[in-house]
């Protein structure tokens, strides 16, 4: 049985400019212990899906579909029950970790708080746990760093703090939203390594959101590719990378390998004005009449009229 099973997730926002369809019939599954990667250009709705799972979307969002977690539909859970799941069952870390830490609370305090929320323990114990967690994520001199404030932490260190906080209650699913994007390359590698180790150590499932295919390949078992709010391809990491089905995936891979720079022409369409038919068709070299009219169906993990998986 899958740990997370997302079925036809639709998320839209009512804005002054019109309705933004940020997630359109998104469905995928993550098994226990599996690491899944959600790939796409920025603005394609990846992070929205993640926030949708956490039910942390802003007030003007409309959400429908089903998100089963351990068989329970998160979207039908009571607010209180959902809150209890956050951090305990599903944890999340974000891009730009520095801004994600509260500047007026000490770092250790924030980690200890994460411990305390889900485990009824004394301040002393939670403090000790926090120090342990800090050591676990590789923060040097955790006792001293405990009472320091976020501005005293570098980006990499702050992300370690975020990871410590996320793993405080050993969640079964960790959502990592572009965890390394804002970091230096050397630090990126360290964080990836850390995440990888910890996920396997705790047997935590991972939903990694990134636009960096290299990171994805290093860490994940399966991959979901999103474009303009919808999934266009999904499958096992090795399959998709070796044999990408969708022209967009192909272009992404080519770009990542550095052989053909700027291989995806044009830009992501505005989510308020999506084209008819296949959303990728204006940028697709292979597009035909049918692509302009009819939205392709997902077949064998690829959503394309032209290219089929063999």
């Amino acid at each position, binding site marked *: 049985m899958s740990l997370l099973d997302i079925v036809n997730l639709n998320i839209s926002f009512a804005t002054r400019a019109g309705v933004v369809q940020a997630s359109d019939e998104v469905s995928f599954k993550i098994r226990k212990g599996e690491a899944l990667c959600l790939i796409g250009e920025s603005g394609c709705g990846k992070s929205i899906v993640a926030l949708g799972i956490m039910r942390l979307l802003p007030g003007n969002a409309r959400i429908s579909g089903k998100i089963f977690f351990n068989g329970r539909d998160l979207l039908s859970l009571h607010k209180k029950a959902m809150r209890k799941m956050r*951090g305990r069952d599903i944890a999340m870390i*974000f891009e730009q970790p520095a*801004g*994600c830490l509260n*500047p*007026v609370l000490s770092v250790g305090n924030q980690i200890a708080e994460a411990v305390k*929320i889900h485990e009824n323990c004394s301040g002393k114990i939670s403090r000790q746990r926090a120090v342990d967690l800090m050591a676990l994520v590789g923060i040097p001199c955790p006792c001293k760093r405990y009472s320091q404030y976020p*501005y*005293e932490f570098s980006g990499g260190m702050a992300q370690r703090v975020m990871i410590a*906080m996320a793993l405080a209650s050993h969640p079964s699913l960790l959502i990592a939203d572009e965890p390394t994007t804002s970091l230096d390359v050397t630090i990126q590698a360290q964080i990836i390594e850390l995440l990888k180790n910890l996920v396997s150590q705790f047997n935590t499932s991972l939903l990694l959101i990134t636009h960096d295919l290299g990171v994805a390949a290093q860490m994940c078992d399966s991959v979901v590719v999103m474009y303009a709010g919808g999934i266009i391809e999904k499958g096992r990491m090795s399959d998709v990378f070796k044999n990408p089905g969708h022209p967009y995936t192909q272009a992404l891979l080519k770009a990542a390998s550095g052989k053909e720079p700027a291989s995806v022409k044009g830009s992501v369409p505005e989510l308020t004005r999506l084209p008819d038919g296949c959303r990728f068709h204006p940028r697709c070299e292979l597009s035909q009449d049918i692509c302009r009219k009819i939205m392709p169906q997902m077949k064998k993990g690829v959503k394309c009229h032209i290219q089929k998986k063999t």
Partner: protein
Amino acid sequence: MVKFIAGRLALAVLIMLGSAILSFSILTLAPGNAAEAILSAERADDPQLAEVESFMERHGLNNSRLIRLSQWLHMLSKGNFGISLRTGEPVAEEFRARFPATFELAASSMALAIIIALPFGVISAVKQNSILDNVIRFVALWGVSMPNFWLGLLLILCFGVILGWFPTYGSGSIVHLILPTITLGTSMTAILMRLQRASMLEVLNENYIRTARAKGLHEVLVIGKHAFKNTLIPVVTIIGMQFAHLLSGVVIVEQVFAWPGIGHFLVDSINARDYPVIQGFVLIIAFFFVLSNLIVDILYAFLDPRIRYGRTQ
């Protein structure tokens, strides 16, 4: 931190010096003379010119302004603010005797403002664009637009005269304090409420709030601990600065409610042209301004770890 406070202290001293000089200047531009006003008020009769002369002589009012200024400066350097021409008591003593009443009023107004403004400001921000928010915002805007002397009169009319719930003037007990406190506290409440709402809205968009929620933290704690604490930085600044403003806003309210504080005495002294009192009070009030700004700076440092641990911006 030490360096930061030292810097602020140096600035405060500089400002105090400037204030003293400015107080002098006010005196030099003032026409007229206290003797007749004071003597005639005292006896309801025309003081004879001989009496006026002897009064002026006794109080050194015949000296040139420059000499009076230097005398005042000299006294000031010894911590002496001079003697009131009207009451014959030391100015510092006159201030000390009346300050508690004023402080009581200002503090209770501030307490009222804090008690009302902070929670409603937070609610207004959390329930942004709801009916409640709109009501709160309108009330806040109304509050800053309300002239406090008129509000005072309306309150006296309504709760003092018509309903008879509260005494209409004077001080001395908690029931006396209520109407003046509302009068003085309304605009403060409004200002604080607007500020609290604005900074709350700003903070609620911050990423660390999302983090706090992602941890599974109860919304009450997200707002009350993570968000609120961050809003305190601008809010405390304004509270401090406004407290000093309250001390001056008190002047009019004290007139309306016949409240025996420094503002009341100052207005009387202006009418009597009691220069030592005017100069002294203005200087002491300026001193309180500087002091409260200093306290705000220090409090600011305590609230913002970035300043607390040495980084002066």
